[in-house]
């Protein structure tokens, strides 16, 4: 909760009746502030107090849900400015623009690429999630038909874009069940556009004119109307201004607890660059710096893939590396003559190595040693992948019962442990494998355990 005990105390009845279980209202206020009590334990708080406290205890940045089903995303809900303080929660949504006057081949291409862009990495599915559909016709029937057409082609989450409330409403009638993001309420169209968010139960973008103050006015109006699922577009269309806005918004929300800016942002990279390459760098900037959603003009794998990797990196837990359960992993139905390889239990390493073995279709046993989630070299440097450690693990894990040979392949980067490992295992043949996992297929083609 953002308020101190004294601040809360001022809002309480101050009768010290004791019914809440605390001896005095002040004591109760202190308990509330430290999270040791719940407000409804006091039967006498006013509605006004309840409202103020509820607002104060709301997260500083609203979590906004967009879309339904597989491609639904949550944006916002962030609690810190720097990722080492605490995990960044909700990965930036990545989307692509389609305009209503775009030709079919172009639309088809974007939809196909969207569907193909699915990558599994460290057990996580990486892919873009959104299409932003921009009306160019200013005709309700036309935009409605266009939105319906796209809905028939993809389950992607949608952003509906038109400044005209009538056009928007026509599209919402067909798309409302998909919970699209309405783009946008402006200073001009607010009175007509904002009610649509309520009527159709959809989140909405507040779009400014390039000034923070304008967007603040718009969100304040929305808050007055009790519209809370809001995403901010400040209207900035150059990289540096947008960067400055995003930093200021994050800080205003977290440090100043300034409600009108306590919302995720949307960034139109497509409007801030003159090539897809430049756009990619704009998008990268706002994946790192506080973008809730970034929109690109196209989805080309050579541009989206680096962004997906970056997003995965930035939005991981900074405290604990992702780990894989240690043990014996049979890959491609190995038998008693199949090679045995050993690696660490850092998820990234495990997925890379097992992926290479799988892809080359050579049967093998992969031993995953507990290194507390450290990569091969890091673990070795930290004393968690020594010859002795690895040897003990190999003996204990039970691989000896599954194979007839006595060969073990170690990572090339761990070559230094081979002598010690040979000693520890006594009679085993320790083979130093390649350094990079990408060389494993070539290696397995010729390698015969003995």
């Amino acid at each position, binding site marked *: 909760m953002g308020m101190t005990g004294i601040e809360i105390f001022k809002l309480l009845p101050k009768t010290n009746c004791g019914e809440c279980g605390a001896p005095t209202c002040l004591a109760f206020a202190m308990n509330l502030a430290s999270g040791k009590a719940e407000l409804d334990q006091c039967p006498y708080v006013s509605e006004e107090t309840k409202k103020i406290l509820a607002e104060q205890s709301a997260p500083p940045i609203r979590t906004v849900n967009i879309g339904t089903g597989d491609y639904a995303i949550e944006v916002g809900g962030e609690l810190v400015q720097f990722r080492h303080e605490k995990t960044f929660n909700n990965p930036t949504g990545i989307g692509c623009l389609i305009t209503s006057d775009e030709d079919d081949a172009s639309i088809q291409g974007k939809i196909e690429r969207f569907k193909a862009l699915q990558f599994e990495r460290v057990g996580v599915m990486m892919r873009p999630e959104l299409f932003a559909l921009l009306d160019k016709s200013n005709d309700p029937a036309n935009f409605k038909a266009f939105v319906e057409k796209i809905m028939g082609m993809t389950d992607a989450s949608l952003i509906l874009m038109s400044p005209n409330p009538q056009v928007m409403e026509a599209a919402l009638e067909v798309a409302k069940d998909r919970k699209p993001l309405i783009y946008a309420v402006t200073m001009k169209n607010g009175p007509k556009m904002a009610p649509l968010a309520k009527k159709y139960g959809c989140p909405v973008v507040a779009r400014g004119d390039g000034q923070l103050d304008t967007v603040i006015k718009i969100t304040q109006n929305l808050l007055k109307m009790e519209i809370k699922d809001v995403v901010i577009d400040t209207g900035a269309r150059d990289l540096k201004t947008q960067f*400055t806005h995003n930093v200021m918004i994050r800080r205003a929300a977290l440090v100043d607890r300034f409600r009108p800016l306590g919302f995720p942002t949307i960034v139109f990279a497509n409007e801030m660059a003159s090539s897809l390459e*430049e756009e990619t*760098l704009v998008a*990268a900037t706002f994946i790192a710096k506080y973008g809730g959603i970034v929109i690109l003009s196209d989805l080309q*794998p050579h*541009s989206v893939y*680096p962004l997906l990797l*970056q997003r995965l990196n930035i939005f991981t837990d900074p405290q604990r590396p992702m780990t894989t359960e240690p043990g014996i992993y049979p890959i491609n139905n190995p038998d008693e003559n199949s090679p045995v390889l050993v690696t660490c239990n850092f998820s990234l390493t495990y997925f890379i190595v097992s992926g290479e073995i799988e892809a080359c279709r050579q049967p093998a046993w992969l031993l995953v040693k507990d290194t507390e989630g450290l990569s091969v070299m890091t673990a070795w440097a930290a004393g968690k992948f020594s010859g002795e450690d690895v040897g003990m693990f190999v003996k204990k894990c039970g691989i000896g019962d599954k194979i007839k040979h006595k060969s073990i392949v170690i990572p090339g980067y761990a070559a230094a442990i081979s002598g010690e490992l040979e000693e520890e295992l006594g009679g085993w043949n320790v083979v130093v494998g390649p350094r*990079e996992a990408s060389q494993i297929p070539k290696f397995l083609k010729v390698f015969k355990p003995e």
Partner: protein
Amino acid sequence: MAFEPTKQKYTGAVRQVTLGVGDKAVTVGGRSCFPFYTFEGEMPNPPRVAMEVWDKNPGDEWPETAKEPFKDVLDDPVAWAKKCVEKYGAEIIALQTRSADPNADNKPAAEVAAVVKKVVDAVDVPVIVWGVANHEKDIEVMRLVAEQCSGKNLALAPVEEGDHKQIGAACMGYNHVVVASTPIDVNLAKQLNVLLGNLGVKDDKILIDPTTGALGYGLEYTYSVMERITQAALAQGDDKLANPIVNNLSIEVWKTKEANQTTEEAPELGDAKTRAVLMEAVTAVSYLLAGSDIVILRHPDTVKLVKDYIEKMMA
């Protein structure tokens, strides 16, 4: 009234470090705000782009997409470095002394140093000489380089705890800059700077190498340690961490599988060259946002993209 969010209070600034001599000398650092937060502090010097040159033909270690722009100069480090400066606008050359690697070519130190000197003499921009992270060999090579390139104000890297005395002394003796290298750890970074200080290396003769991970291969660790170094220096007044940061990133990015797969091998990842270039550029952008002062890059297309990017962010 216009809305004004709270301003971050800064108690320090990153100190300025100059590399090279003459007209093309480069000064980095001086920043008194988080990277590009120029609405609340100063950023007198833009981050700089260094281009990577190897002292030997990289052969199979580089994919064709990386070799293509340099195919006429790969066997000639001098011509290669000149091409980077004259054709591609390199502001600094990062010469990697790969031929010295004891686990590979293991070329004698004297020969390695002689090539370094030729490169240094051939270009007017500053040169970072990046060794092979083998203490004995780096000490041998860097001592010769420091002496033979005396007066050129080079930066010598990586200087680790295990060889800081020898390489640090050589830098002091011949007035070069030390690139203090530690494995992704704020405390170790600080400790090495303290050790270098005890040795007599001046504060404005130190760059920090936080150790660089590639996009998808540990980027997040380097990113966060850089943010922490920047915070310690600027917001917590930790003078011993207030040095500019250099990221030797191209060598990490171009080693990854995705940067090496051809378009035919990985059609699902799009055009091979653009993919690798954007992986390199996205890595660079991430590190610039985390506080990098010098990014070492390989492909001319990346260099152009990142230079344009820096210009826009400095606006």
